[in-house]
């Protein structure tokens, strides 16, 4: 274990330290740390605690992840799941970064919205919803953001089939 920690780059070690802090507080609600050199991350296992974890990450004086740099959607057809990946940074006090993954069932799944924690999440969650169709519970305004409001299907799902016509206009080539 000690050796593995030594092999980590300084940036990943910083992320590990932040992770240890969160792990101490939330225990089994989050997964083990993945020391991916480009994007060290952990997964939220107990999805219902995602907002608590988010608030802790933002407000703990040793973490201060005050900047949600990106929130992307992912489709995992083999696992029958949809998910999001959030990239966090701290602007100001610390230089550490970490990514968090949250997953939900592919059909009718939902993830608690963190738009009340980071306002950035508002539009990003709308985009993830627009492209993948997972519902963000507690989102103040969950509408499609890029596709037309009455578009059918979620374009970035792996099994997406484009609709034949839209308002009488042929869509495929």
């Amino acid at each position, binding site marked *: 274990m000690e050796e593995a920690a030594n092999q980590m780059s300084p940036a990943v070690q910083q992320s590990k330290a932040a992770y240890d802090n969160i792990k101490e507080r939330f225990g089994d609600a989050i997964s083990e740390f993945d020391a991916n050199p480009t994007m060290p991350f952990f997964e939220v296992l107990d999805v219902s605690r995602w907002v608590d974890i988010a608030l802790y990450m933002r407000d703990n004086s040793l973490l201060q992840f005050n900047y949600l740099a990106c929130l992307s959607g992912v489709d995992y057809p083999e696992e029958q799941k949809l998910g999001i990946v959030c990239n966090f940074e701290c602007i100001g006090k610390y230089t550490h970064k970490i990514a968090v993954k949250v997953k939900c069932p592919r059909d009718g799944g939902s993830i608690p919205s963190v738009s009340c924690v980071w306002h950035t999440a508002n539009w990003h969650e709308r985009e993830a919803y627009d492209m993948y169709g997972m519902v963000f519970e507690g989102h103040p305004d969950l509408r499609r953001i890029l596709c*037309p409001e009455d578009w059918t299907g979620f374009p970035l799902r792996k099994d997406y089939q484009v609709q034949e016509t*839209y*308002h009488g*206009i*042929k*869509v495929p*080539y």
Partner: protein
Amino acid sequence: MGLLDARISNRNVLVTSVDNVMNWARLSSLWPMGFGLACCAIEMMATNASNYDLERFGIFPRSSPRQSDLMIVAGTVTMKMAERVVTLYEQMPEPRYVLSMGSCSNCGGPYWNHGYHVLKGVDRVIPVDVYVPGCPPRPEALIGGLMKIQELIRMEGLGISRQDALKKLAEKSVDPQQVIDQVRKSATA
């Protein structure tokens, strides 16, 4: 070619047909609608700007469809935008012309297969008079397309429908390969 090239007699009298005067006036002040949809619009703006100076043709963009007689569809027409484009087209007074600029608005361009959100050619929703190929077309190509529109206007007249004018224009067209070969030959000679 133009009206001003005709000889004007000593008392500043010019005898010509109404058609001629009308067409000359219309083709010398083509007002396109000022809107762009994607990267092609950048090239269109460059054509409007000082280097290529479209105003020397009397072409300058208007901010309202009601004052425009030409629509340059410059860029990617998304499905969301398609209906707006139709509305804008319908708001333009006749006679109106449409120039489709770039692969995207010609046929979907790079998005022809996997672009679920892109209209595969603006001619699916509005009639197009001139297509300018390219991704994006150079300003010279756009100017070439605009000159084609001017030629088309010149072909029109009382009792000549747009369809007839387009046919006449097509008859007058030259095979570009011949021109290319000619230029090549004269360059090597």
